[in-house]
């Protein structure tokens, strides 16, 4: 039997939000939109600029790094969610100006603070009926970039 028929695949939880690397030297990407008129960036993709309403927009890959703008700690898990409580949900301002909401992982919920530098990381959240890995993303704390580094 050909190997491809039984090889496990990685599938995104929802198409069109992020890219999954197909080789080890690739990085995951966030799929967004940039307005050509005013420069504002958005996640997820938009067909027009929410800031200036221009329809002259382009698909871009967004920065996967940013800082926590605001957050809360959910103490009750939601019925449709695979994430167990307690977990931190943050509004993150990416380095290129887009905003994104994401679960924070890789630290205690008590360590989360506004201004914390974070970076996107892919995470397997479950398997689908075909046995593929279903992939989503979180953000994890990273050291702040060193000056001149």
């Amino acid at each position, binding site marked *: 039997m050909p190997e491809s028929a039984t090889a496990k695949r990685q599938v995104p*939880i*929802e198409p069109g*939000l992020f890219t999954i690397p197909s080789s080890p030297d690739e990085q995951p990407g966030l799929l967004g939109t940039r307005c050509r008129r005013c420069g*504002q960036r958005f996640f997820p993709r938009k067909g027009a600029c*929410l*800031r200036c309403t221009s329809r002259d927009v382009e698909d871009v890959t967004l920065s996967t790094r940013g800082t926590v*703008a*605001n*957050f*809360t*700690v*959910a*103490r*009750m*898990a*939601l*019925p*449709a*969610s*695979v*994430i167990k409580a307690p*977990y931190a*949900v943050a*509004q993150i*301002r990416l380095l290129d*100006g887009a*905003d994104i*909401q*994401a*679960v924070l992982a890789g630290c205690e919920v008590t360590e989360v603070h*506004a201004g914390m530098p974070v970076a996107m990381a892919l995470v397997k*959240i*479950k398997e689908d009926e075909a046995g593929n890995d*279903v992939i*989503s*993303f*979180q953000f994890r704390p990273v050291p702040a970039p060193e000056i001149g580094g």
Partner: protein
Amino acid sequence: MREVVVLGVGLHPFGRFPDKPKQALAREAIWTALDDAGLEFKDVECLWLGCVLNPTFTAWNLLREVGQTGIPILNVECACASSSSAFREAYWAIANGLYDVCAAVGVEKMQRGMIEIEDPNTYVGAMGINIMPGLYAMKARKHMEQFGSTPEQFAQVSVKSHRLATLNPNAQYRKECSLEEVLNSRMIADPLTLLQCSPSSDGASAVVLCAKEKAARFTGLAISVAGWACGTPRFLGTEGDDLSDEMVIRLSQQAYERAGIGPADVDVLQLHDAFTPGEVCVVEALGFCPEGEGGRFVWEGQTDLGGRIPTNTDVGLLSRGHPMGATGLAQIIEIVTQLRGRAGARQVPDAKVGMCHNVGIGGCNIHILKR
């Protein structure tokens, strides 16, 4: 534009009524409002009905209960601001001379617990992003970080609401609770505990509006609509969410200008306290206290009876409950009741000017009413 008055108000108590379909709740509310106004349903020329969940056919089903008179009707959905949106549509129609007598109705039936059931096959659903109190919890956290307000100050909003509930037979939850009980109730999303979240509920509300020049022939005690404003949050990145201060500041300024007044002239207030940070933050944005001082303002009792601006005197969403489609008009009804001097144990003495702030995902409506 003509002057418009509220002629009649009617509330079906908020609570659990599993045996009553929406049209049964709604018809009681509108019959109460019509009796209050001294009118029959045949006098209503146009009807708007606010309802969020399964709104299809709701206005029509109501007509089939109260009178199939051939009038235009419309279901209005603006999430938690649905029935204040129904109110403003009725107001605009009369003010612009299209009709003389209109009705605005609000109704909702809800199940217990979290409102949204997300799709587990989406990023947002699978990751549990949309926690119901999430936006309010984040707003509270930022307010504490920026201005030094405290969890106790937010919790005090709930203490006040539950105390005022003992004065109001229409409140769903009529038991006082202490600050400790509020703070120690189950944590939902930091820093909001269960007793800082409004309960879901069934209920209905109705208001009859009339052109002022036609109102004298009816017996209802008329209260004028003096100012109004409506809108949605502007794009500000994540801060342009439905709790945006920018939106409330902008809209309240428009409403004050239309009414020819300022915050100092307002005697009694209804604001959207689905969760306690609503009260702390909105009193600032409406101009009742300087930015950042909302926590202290509430803590000192300035939003309580006897304070600078009695707020949510009928207990607001926190103790009244929050049947989403009915809340907007319930706020208007309490303000009208106060301005008419009929608020009994919770009356604000000599209240002449009242203000309503109602917000949902999809917009905010502010109304100013005057005796």
